């Protein structure tokens, strides 16, 4: 099947709803994490296809929030291994100050078979996009020219959409936290 027809069929956004079972995580400020998952409410997750302009929108529409952008794929073992720490990091910050998003490098026709099951299994409390570029190289260069494309990779942007920190390779909660805190402290 032609790829573009397939993507159209999948529609630009596939939304699923399910119950999240996450419990509130402790935060550095001691307040309960303000996420639907943490509050135990029903929440909606969406996996959206993201093209070049979509990527720029994500980066630049900051609304005063720091952005933590994690690039991953279901075939990437170290990505799987670091995800619990990424989820923990996302839950540790007020969502009005820090926004975490995941960008999957899986194929669009793997959303239902691989990406969504992974989201459910890991109770991911943040938005997941799926990169849809002409080539993976274009996506890599759009994020950071000097990045060799190895994943997992996490890029932290300040409130103005400026990329401040790149964390290439598998990270831990402490490393995520150190990066996020550094960017939160920056002007």
């Amino acid at each position, binding site marked *: 099947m032609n*790829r573009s027809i397939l993507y159209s069929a999948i529609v630009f956004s596939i939304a699923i709803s399910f119950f999240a079972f996450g419990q509130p995580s402790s935060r550095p400020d001691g307040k309960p994490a303000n996420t639907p998952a943490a509050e135990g409410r029903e929440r909606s997750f969406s996996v959206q296809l993201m093209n070049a302009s979509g990527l720029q929108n994500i980066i630049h529409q900051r609304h005063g929030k720091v952005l933590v952008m994690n690039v991953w794929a279901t*075939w*990437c*073992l*170290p990505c799987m291994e670091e995800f619990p720490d990424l989820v923990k990091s996302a839950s540790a910050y007020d969502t009005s100050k820090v926004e975490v998003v995941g960008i999957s*490098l899986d*194929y669009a026709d793997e959303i239902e078979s691989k990406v969504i099951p992974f989201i459910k299994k890991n109770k991911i409390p943040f938005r997941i996009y799926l990169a849809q570029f002409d*080539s*993976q*190289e274009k996506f*890599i*260069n759009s994020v950071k020219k000097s990045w*060799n*494309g*190895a*994943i*997992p990779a996490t890029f932290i942007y300040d409130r103005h959409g400026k990329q401040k920190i790149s964390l290439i*390779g*598998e990270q831990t909660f402490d490393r995520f936290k150190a990066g996020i805190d550094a960017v939160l402290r920056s002007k």
Partner: protein
Amino acid sequence: MRHNMIRTLAAILLIAGTVFQAEAKKKVENFTLEDYSGKKHALADYSSSKAIVLMFIATQCPVSNAYNDRMVQLYKDYAGKKVAFVGINSNKQESVDDIKNHAKEHGFEFPILKDWNNTIADKLGASVTPEIFVLDKHFNVLYHGRIDDSRRESEVASRDLRVALDAVLDGKKVATEETKAFGCSIKRVK
């Protein structure tokens, strides 16, 4: 006046040096690794080849595995043209037995070397599997990057490694010397 001349000369040398540096090719030092049978292979063993293709590969990575048939076909198409193919496994969690079984299962006719402690991956700066380095007989890097541009063979639009090898065999400069390899991060010792 004399000071001005010296400054001008220094500026010219600086610019020339920068340009020369930019033009200089990356060169790989000779190394020796064992294959899964315990046989030693030195890079110098392949110096009579027209090109040496170093392929960082894995046994468990779905992306690397998606290229198994393509690697077999590349070997069939180019080995007879004096192109040497050498697989390198730098993943810490993949044993020699894993590599041996994987090679037999997929019909790899080229040697696969075990890079303990990811020493060679570090020296070359290899990050993922699959990731390719094409060298000339002096071990200069002629091409570095991906095999082609899609994990799915049916969606490949740019066969970068084949294009590079064809250029080398034709005695031409490789037009695109660097592409971005994509795949699984090499699991390194920490």
